[in-house]
């Protein structure tokens, strides 16, 4: 009893010691040191600055305001009032926009007129032109995201802009249409149609409105992806008695098999050099990622190899626009997760867990769009913040951003 009391007194005395002394604990009692810096890098400000000068004309004031909003939203520039690297001036009358972009040294980079029916449409085009001229990277104000929704009762293809606005239903097929992809210039959509009751790949020209069937082969055909040149499609066809990845030339209507598998290949995606294709293939151990080289000529040799990711059950890979990273879906304990890994080798990071599916890169490589629990998200890879850009469309699946 006395011993317990003595211990209690010692403990109370130790507790009432000043903090400075309390830090002199024996080594075995010390807490592990916390890392000095957080693993997240601070967000850098854009290096280039732009000044939006006066816009004359009837709709000049609103044009200037909208352009400022677009440029702020792009996060490519710092907007200043003096000492900027670039200067934008112009005029706007009745929705038409005339604009001039100058460098700080006075060199005029472009002077253009935008005469589309809507003021907002013109300013998005202008904003993308400014970003492209100043940074060399494509803007995404005019880019489109294509996706599948079963809002109408069957799966149909829809298209929206990068903010989830301006949603349009593209297909109205009785048995549905799935697996869409946009051509690099955004003028055409390739998708799998169940119009005849069997899966067939079709290409729809959004500008002219015509539609044509690319593959009406027996078996299934799906998973089309436009090549960077927009003239070829990579897709899965099974008429040879096994599903394989084919590259088909849209001009000559010929197809060549580039995979050599006895498994279940899916989701081909092109490297921006147009010479490699990454796809998921299940050869009996769950889907893993493979790289196939596209032979330049008929008799050229091409390699096909497994790309080790360190994750299991990898599907839906897509190369980043610069070809230095691959985003894909891997299976983890709490469901599907989106992983971004350096290509051909390097570090990998999990971007989103908890059932996120089907990642697709923005044209500038800064954002990823994906679906999670039926909603469409855009994820900023620089800040780690994400936005649900589209909900209320029943279950959204298979989003793909214009490349």
């Amino acid at each position: 009893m006395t011993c317990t009391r003595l211990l209690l007194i010692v403990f109370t005395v130790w507790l009432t010691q000043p903090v400075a002394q309390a830090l002199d604990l024996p080594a075995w009692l010390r807490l592990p040191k916390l890392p000095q810096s957080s693993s997240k890098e601070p967000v850098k400000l854009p290096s280039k600055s732009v000044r939006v000068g006066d816009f004359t004309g009837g709709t000049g004031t609103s044009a200037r305001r909208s352009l400022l909003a677009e440029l702020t939203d792009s996060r490519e520039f710092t907007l200043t009032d003096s000492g900027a690297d670039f200067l934008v001036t112009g005029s706007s009358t009745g929705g038409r926009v005339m604009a001039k972009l100058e460098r700080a040294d006075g060199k005029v980079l472009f002077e253009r007129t935008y005469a589309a029916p809507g003021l907002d449409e013109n300013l998005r085009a202008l904003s993308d032109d400014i970003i492209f001229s100043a940074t060399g990277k494509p803007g995404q104000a005019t880019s489109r995201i294509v996706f599948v929704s079963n809002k109408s009762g069957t799966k149909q293809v829809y298209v929206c802009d990068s903010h989830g606005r301006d949603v349009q239903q593209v297909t109205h097929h009785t048995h549905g249409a799935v697996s869409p992809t946009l051509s690099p210039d955004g003028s055409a959509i390739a998708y799998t149609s169940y119009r005849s009751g069997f899966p067939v790949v079709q290409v729809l020209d959004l500008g002219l409105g015509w539609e044509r069937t690319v593959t009406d082969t027996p078996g299934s055909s799906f998973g089309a992806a436009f090549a960077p040149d927009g003239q070829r499609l990579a897709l899965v066809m099974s008429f040879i008695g096994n599903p394989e990845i084919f590259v088909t030339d849209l001009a000559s209507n010929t197809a060549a098999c580039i995979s050599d598998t006895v498994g279940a290949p899916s989701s081909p995606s092109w490297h921006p050099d147009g010479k490699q294709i990454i796809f998921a293939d299940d050869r009996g151990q769950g889907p893993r990622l493979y790289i196939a080289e596209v032979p330049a000529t008929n008799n050229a040799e091409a390699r096909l190899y497994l790309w080790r990711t360190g994750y299991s059950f990898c599907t839906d890979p897509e190369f980043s626009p610069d070809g230095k990273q691959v985003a894909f879906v891997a299976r983890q304990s709490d469901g599907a997760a989106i992983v971004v890994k350096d290509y051909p080798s390097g570090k990998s990071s999990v971007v989103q867990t908890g059932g996120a599916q089907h990642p697709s890169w923005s044209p500038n490589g800064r954002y990823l769009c994906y679906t999670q629990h039926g909603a469409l998200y855009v994820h900023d890879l620089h800040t780690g913040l994400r936005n649900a850009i589209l909900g209320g469309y029943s279950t959204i699946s298979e989003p793909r951003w214009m490349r």
Partner: protein
Amino acid sequence: MTFLKSLSLAALVALSACSTLPQEDADVVFALGPRDGFTSPLNGALKPVCPALEFTGTRYALTGAHQKTLLGVAEAWKEGKPRYLIAGYAPPELPEDFARSLSERRAQAVRQHLIENGIEAAQLQTVGFGHDSPPSSPTSSVVVIYRQ
């Protein structure tokens, strides 16, 4: 001498075993013929010829139970020689494109086995719906053989 005898006997046994090695024919993959005239289950109610073949996980190899069912299908085919459409389906939790490929692969595995059991390749077509349209069976990870 006894050693030589036993050696020659062993060699004989080994050589005779050669003739029973698996034939290369088993690896032949039969390309699909034209699809003209085949009806999709999406366009009308088709009658399944046997209970739906259920698969587990992401497997596409046929089990003993599948092979037993398919043997019965191949026997029944010989009367009348009808055309069959083999349709694969996959559960909704799989990624969309992978589900289409896996369901097609399963349908092709069933087709291959039916051909090996005597059904003419031209009478068989496959299709993989993934989880774009639900099957008529209560479970979704199945292959259904429809009579045309």
